[in-house]
């Protein structure tokens, strides 16, 4: 028993030693696998992983370029960047967020109503990222906060650039305003150039010139941990790249601030528009839509309520009537149609027609009325333009024909884009037989009727034009057929070396009229409108220079055959629109103007004085 036990003991020990050696060999084998792997990772692929670790911790933050400044033609600032202060809250540094917000609200620094939305924002944000809780502090707000600052740890006053419009209302539509980037904007924008919290041009020149004004953002590299928190650099061994932003280009508009202010003042909040243009190069001297708004509120704290109020306002202050509003041009097109009638022989310089106050087509009893119910009597084209006789144009309307009307109105740029540097310009409408053919589905609707030609001859019916188009067409009358593309951008300026690049004017095809006398006949009739026995002679009184113009008063609703138009019985919004186009001086024109006052009732009485005042101002009288 004992001997066997001893023998086993030795054998067991040998066996154990045996197994231990096997274990050691297996262990060494396993540990070599780990060592090979370590060699592979730390020696062979070291560079690769160094790069990976570098990529892990280096984050990039965009540094935004200052937005380009917008000037008027004389270098007065229309849009600039100003420093405003805002309150930012860093969640992890504030002990009791609810309490802090409550106390800020008690100091009047934040709205009680905005507290909940601020809290939601804080909840969504990372703990170390500042949340903006109030923008555009006033000087007294800043003072108030500065005094109480020690009680608000984790809430900081931060400077930020905001857009400022020093002449706010006077330039709101032509300059435009900025707003937050929307989902639709994201489709169009080059995303890499924008920070999600940035504001971009929403309307006007701010929108059209976004690419120039914005500039190219730079970047700063910084070290961040796995959650994106910035970590101060411990050693100098890390090289952090940096690229400075390229500031946006400055832009000079062709508009004259003084004319903008005057036109805004003259419109006085009534619905309407004024466009002034230099006929010699197409430069827009003034472009005003009324009522207007203060674009600065978009840079500050515009609440949804405020925005909705602006949007739902019946007078549509955000709507740029000068390029987006389309109106029946009314009698303002008579000079053009007169020119067309002369050119094609539908009338001549002496032919007279008798105006009894109404006109009927042959074989038809329907009466097309003249605005002067007693009639103008026997009248020639010159007088028909200056007195705005409708019947004369009714008489020659079907001799000209709708398609030739279309041809000449088209030559003056009506019914087509002016290609002004603004987004969304409307093209208006100059009807033709072809247009009607394509426009309607029912066969009987596709036919063009002679009666439609009759009302087209006084610029009513289907015909529509924007105030800008009317000013543009008037400019072509002023130059006796020389046309330029409407131009709103005078120059762009490199913000660093102040080098200006002027934009060339684009001359368009001349309007070909065989006889120069026809031009002079029409211009002379327009001159008579203002400085003779014409409709707007009161507006032309006592002028030290010679001018030309044409009034238009267009119906908003049609008046029945036997009804009398009684302005005292109509609601204001159904009153006639008042239009006026003009240019001056007569021989070497420098300015062409169009004025529209919605429901202004009389072109010569209401719109003409505004055109006169604009011309006076621009010509220095």
């Amino acid at each position: 028993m004992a001997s066997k036990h001893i023998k086993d003991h030795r054998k067991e020990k040998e066996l154990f030693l045996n197994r231990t050696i096997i274990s050691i060999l297996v262990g060494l084998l396993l540990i070599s696998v780990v060592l090979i792997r370590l060699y592979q990772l730390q020696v062979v692929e070291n560079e690769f992983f160094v790069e990976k670790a570098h990529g892990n911790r280096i984050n990039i933050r965009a540094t935004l370029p200052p937005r380009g400044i917008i000037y008027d033609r004389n270098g007065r600032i229309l849009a600039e960047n100003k420093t405003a202060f805002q309150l930012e809250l860093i969640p992890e540094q504030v002990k009791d967020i609810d309490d802090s917000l409550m106390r800020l609200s008690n100091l009047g620094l934040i709205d009680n109503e905005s507290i909940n939305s601020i809290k939601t924002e804080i909840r969504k944000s990372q703990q170390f990222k500042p949340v903006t809780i109030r923008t555009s502090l006033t000087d007294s707000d800043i003072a108030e906060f500065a005094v109480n600052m020690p009680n608000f740890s984790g809430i900081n006053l931060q400077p930020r650039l905001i857009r400022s419009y020093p002449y706010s209302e006077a330039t709101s539509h032509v300059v435009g305003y900025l707003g937050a980037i929307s989902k639709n904007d994201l489709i169009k924008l080059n995303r890499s150039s924008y920070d999600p919290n940035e504001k971009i041009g929403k309307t006007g020149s701010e929108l059209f010139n976004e690419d120039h004004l914005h500039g190219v953002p730079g970047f700063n590299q910084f070290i961040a941990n796995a959650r994106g928190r910035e970590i101060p650099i411990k050693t100098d061994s890390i090289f952090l790249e940096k690229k400075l932003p390229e500031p946006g280009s400055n832009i000079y508009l062709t508009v004259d601030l003084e004319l903008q202010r005057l036109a805004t003042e003259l419109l006085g909040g009534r619905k309407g528009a004024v466009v002034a243009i230099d006929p010699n190069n197409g430069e827009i001297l003034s472009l005003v839509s009324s009522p207007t708004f203060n674009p600065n509120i978009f840079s500050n704290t515009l609440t949804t309520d405020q925005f909705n109020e602006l949007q739902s306002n019946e007078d549509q202050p955000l709507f740029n009537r000068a390029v987006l509003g389309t109106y029946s041009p009314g009698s303002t097109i008579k000079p053009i149609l007169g020119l067309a009638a002369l050119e094609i022989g539908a009338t001549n310089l002496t032919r007279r027609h008798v105006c009894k106050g109404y006109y009927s087509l042959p074989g038809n009893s329907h009466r097309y009325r003249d605005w002067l119910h007693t009639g103008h009597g026997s009248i020639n084209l010159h007088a028909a333009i200056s007195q705005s006789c409708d019947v004369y144009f009714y008489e020659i309307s079907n001799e000209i024909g709708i398609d030739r009307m279309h041809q000449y109105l088209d030559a003056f740029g009506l019914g087509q884009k002016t290609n002004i540097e603004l987004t969304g310009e409307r093209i208006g409408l100059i009807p033709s037989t072809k247009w009607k053919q394509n426009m309607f589905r029912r066969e009987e609707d596709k036919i063009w009727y002679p009666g439609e030609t009759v009302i087209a001859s006084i610029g009513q019916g289907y015909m529509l034009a924007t105030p800008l188009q009317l000013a543009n067409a008037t400019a072509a009358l002023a130059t006796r057929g020389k046309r330029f593309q409407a131009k709103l951008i005078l120059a762009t300026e490199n913000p660093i070396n102040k080098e200006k690049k002027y934009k060339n004017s684009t001359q368009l095809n001349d309007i070909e009229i065989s006889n120069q006398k026809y031009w002079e006949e029409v211009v002379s009739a327009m001159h008579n409108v203002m400085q003779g026995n014409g409709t707007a002679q009161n507006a032309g009184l006592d002028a030290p220079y010679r001018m030309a113009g044409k009034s238009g008063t267009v119906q908003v609703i049609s008046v029945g055959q036997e009804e009398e138009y009684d302005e005292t019985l109509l609601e204001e919004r159904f009153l006639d629109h008042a239009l006026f186009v003009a240019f001056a001086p007569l021989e070497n024109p420098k300015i062409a103007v169009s004025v529209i006052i919605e429901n202004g009732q009389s072109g010569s009485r209401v719109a003409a004085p505004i055109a006169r005042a604009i011309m006076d101002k621009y010509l220095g009288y």
Partner: protein
Amino acid sequence: MIAKSKEINLTNDQNIKSFKFDGFLFITISLTCLMGVFILYSASNESTDVLIRQVYRIIIAFVAMIIVAQIPTEILRKLSPWSYLGGILLLSLVLWLGESGQGAQRWLNIGIRFQPSEIMKLGVPMMVAWYLHEKRLPPNLRELIFILIIIAIPSFLIAKQPDLGTSILVMAAGLLVLFLSGISFRYILSLGLLAIPSSFLLWEFMKDYQRQRVLTLLNPDSDPLGAGYNIIQSKIAMGSGGIFGKGWKNGSQVQLEFLPEKNTDFIFAVIGEEFGLLGVLTILFLYLIIIGRGLVIATQASDLYGRLLAGSLSLTFFFYVFVNTAMVVGLMPIVGIPLPLVSYGGTSMVTLMVGFGMLMSINSNRKLVAKK
């Protein structure tokens, strides 16, 4: 009879006279712990709180080691079945009324909160060694099956908590005793073949997150921000450390918190990033000489029980080191096994040191026998 009583007397005398202690083990373990504390301080972003708690645990663990070192191997052996049975009882209690933490029931609160599964890391090899102690080696089939049952019960109970990492460790500790006992390679081969169908069975037992870990290992890039994130980041940390490392407290992966679980399971990657290949080799060298010393003690042990237990404890320690490092370098799935003596955490540190205490006890026992 006389001889035996004399031996016991001698042991008692020795107990009183000499303090049982292994200087070599003590110094290497202390060095490893010291290095670990430095690394942990950096890994925890210089948290003194973490540091103090870890040092406190190390002190407790050292005290436990020294106390256990004083217990004669004889008594350890006699305690073996009781510690095993007690462990089984506590594990059952955990499943029945344990406290859960992080989705698993591992904790038992009896005055102090502890994990009974830790007991089994020692209880299972002790039990197997105790069982084989009286047997003729190598074990026969009947004994083999009995041992497999001894191992399977606690492994199953722990896996059910679920704590796959500890379950694997407990299983490994038991199987290593079996291997060292000289079990025939025929049996080992058969067990290996048996492992294939049982791995399918294991797959069925796994929780979704455990399966995900296995799948992620096979292709970490398939889910770079999800389950693969840990492995990718730990490889970046290791790889970017290079040969010399980025320097203490200078590892960007660690300091900027890209490396997950950097205080615990992935602390090896912290060494790799901040101390480079040289640091990694140093700590591996320390581990290997600790294991080597353990194996020397095992081969010199005076009895079978001591030999098997010491061998198993040393190889289990190796198993720890291997599984953790292989996991961190992306060679094995993430199984939640900490880096021994270095990772932040209390219970496993104490268990490890109690194990080293047993090694010391076994070593002292040999000296006694030799003197006799």
